[in-house]
């Protein structure tokens, strides 16, 4: 009788055991053939870089032609000309039609559609002969003019050295502050009319030979060296994403020194979770976004790691922006805190949908309640690093910098913060 009872019990155990074992092996086999794709599509948006993604729109290219730009052009012999020509050619290929080319200073000067004539054959003389006020640069006015010509179906590309020209102003810093406000106002006015706008900025370097004008507008003759210049692309966020895919930074002839982007688009981060590793101390995971029984380790430290799919933000904002821990805000029970340190690294696990691992650690008290990690709309750190406030003498310490640069970025960021909020997106967790 006893034997009859034991045999079915053994059979059941063997079947259950074998079944659980084969599940993971079968699933892994399936996964090897079917690596999950990062969900990059957003309803109503297409940015795969293909021609199909580019519907009817126009691309306007504005080359600032003030006197300070003369040193960048020399009938196709400078890095500036090679690189800008190459970039605009890529844009033209992506766009699939000719670009609308303009010089810009105190007014917009049409220059036709022939790219080669526009940039490659350019000389300082052409700049001067084009007309308008080339003696100073009113950067806020440049943005105002460009944004007045823009709408959702326009891609505007502004190429300039972005050197403010306070000239004979008694208080240059007041002038810069005023310019910042005017830049902010120009973007705010655009965002009032059109809710979607993105800006991306490439910082590049070129050999420069000729007259350099300092912030007092004093000419320094025969300056020769490397100088920064900037390509600003202003358009609908969809176009930014599409252009980023179609024309990656690697396609530039000269290395892109720095990149920054800001957008009104706030994508929701849908796929994020607390990971079991790495960590310090211990906690119990409660689903994907909760934890309890948090304990510090022997050194009094607690750390947990979040895996998040930031693929779309990565495309829009760039990897460098997402890896900069200054661009994250920690909000506990609706109060921002600096007690939690952050480190961000790319997720290298091919099967994981997460693009980034974000570790948060603290030696302070462990909170209970809502923990929010937000990605901020901020100017890039390099805007401050590359800002020069006195360029009367160019030397090794400041020749790679731009006079008053951060005021431009401050103005743009202020406009976005006012209209779109301080955060792009956030991830929410429960700590019990």
């Amino acid at each position, binding site marked *: 009788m*006893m*034997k009859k009872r*034991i045999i079915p*019990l*053994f059979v059941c*155990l063997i079947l*259950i*055991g074998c*079944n*659980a*074992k084969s*599940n*993971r*092996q079968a*699933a*892994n086999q399936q*996964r090897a053939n079917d690596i*999950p794709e990062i969900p990059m599509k957003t309803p109503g948006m297409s940015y795969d870089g293909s021609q199909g993604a580019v519907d009817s729109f126009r691309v306007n290219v504005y080359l600032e032609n003030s006197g300070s730009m003369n040193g960048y052009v020399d009938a196709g012999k400078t890095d500036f000309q090679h690189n800008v020509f190459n970039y605009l050619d890529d844009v033209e290929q992506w766009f699939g039609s000719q670009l609308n080319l303009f010089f810009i200073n105190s007014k917009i000067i049409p220059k036709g559609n022939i790219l080669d004539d526009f940039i490659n054959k350019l000389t300082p003389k052409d700049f001067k002969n084009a007309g308008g006020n080339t003696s100073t640069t009113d950067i806020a006015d440049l943005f105002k003019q460009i944004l007045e010509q823009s709408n959702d179906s326009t891609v505007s590309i502004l190429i300039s050295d972005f050197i403010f020209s306070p000239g004979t102003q008694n208080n240059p810093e007041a002038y810069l502050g005023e310019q910042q406000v005017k830049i902010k106002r120009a973007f705010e006015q655009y965002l009032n009319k059109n809710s979607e706008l993105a800006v991306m900025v490439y910082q590049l370097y070129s050999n420069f030979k000729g007259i350099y004008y300092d912030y007092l507008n004093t000419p320094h003759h025969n300056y020769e060296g490397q100088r920064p210049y900037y390509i600003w692309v202003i358009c609908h966020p969809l176009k930014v994403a599409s252009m980023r895919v179609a024309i990656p930074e690697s396609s530039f002839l000269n290395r892109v020194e720095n990149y920054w982007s800001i957008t009104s688009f706030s994508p929701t981060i849908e*796929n*994020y*979770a607390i*990971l*079991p*590793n790495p960590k310090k101390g*211990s906690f119990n995971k409660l*689903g*994907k976004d909760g934890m309890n029984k948090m304990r510090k380790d022997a050194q009094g430290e607690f750390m947990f790691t979040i*895996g998040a799919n930031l693929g779309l933000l990565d495309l829009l904002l760039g990897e460098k922006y997402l890896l900069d821990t200054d661009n994250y805000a920690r909000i506990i029970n609706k109060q921002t805190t600096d007690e939690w340190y952050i480190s961000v690294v790319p997720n290298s*696990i*091919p*099967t*994981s*949908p*997460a693009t980034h691992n974000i570790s948060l650690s603290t030696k302070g008290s462990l909170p209970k309640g809502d923990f929010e990690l937000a990605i901020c709309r901020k100017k890039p750190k390099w805007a401050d690093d590359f800002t020069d406030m006195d360029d009367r003498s160019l030397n090794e310490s400041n020749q790679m910098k731009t006079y008053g640069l951060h005021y431009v970025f401050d103005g743009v960021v202020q406009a976005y913060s006012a209209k779109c909020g301080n955060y792009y997106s956030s991830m929410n967790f429960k700590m019990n």
Partner: protein
Amino acid sequence: MNFFDFFYRWKSFYGVQLYEHMKGYDDALMDYNPDFNQFPSLFLWTIGIVVAVFVLYYYIINSTRLVKWWHWLISMAIVAGLTYWVGFRTVIVDVNNGTVTPSLQSYVGYNSALMFGIYNMMLAMVFYFVFTLLFRRWSRNCKHSPWELLTTKLNNRKK
């Protein structure tokens, strides 16, 4: 924590990461995949071995010649050996087949398999001991192995 995970909760003994693996953590989901949870099957194997050896010793073999305390100890050693092997093998097969999810791979290896085998063995020994305390009284010949039943001892004293 579900019923089966409960028995393996002292994860610091064999490794937190191995616990995550056994519970079915999957990088692709960034969460536990219930289909990959190996604790239920492992527990059933373990308890099945305990029950089988217990029944074999007390109710099938049930021999008057196997009633010494060390006979019982041998039966427990058989339980220990088998359950150690089940625990160790469960992990080492996953390690060798590369079915440990990538984020845990560097933490789960031979040593954790060894420790998990020991943990499973100790768990089985506890169960075997409890089974012995609770269910040996109905054995005809071995009920006093490894020691005399308490009720019998009390009755003998009264006499």
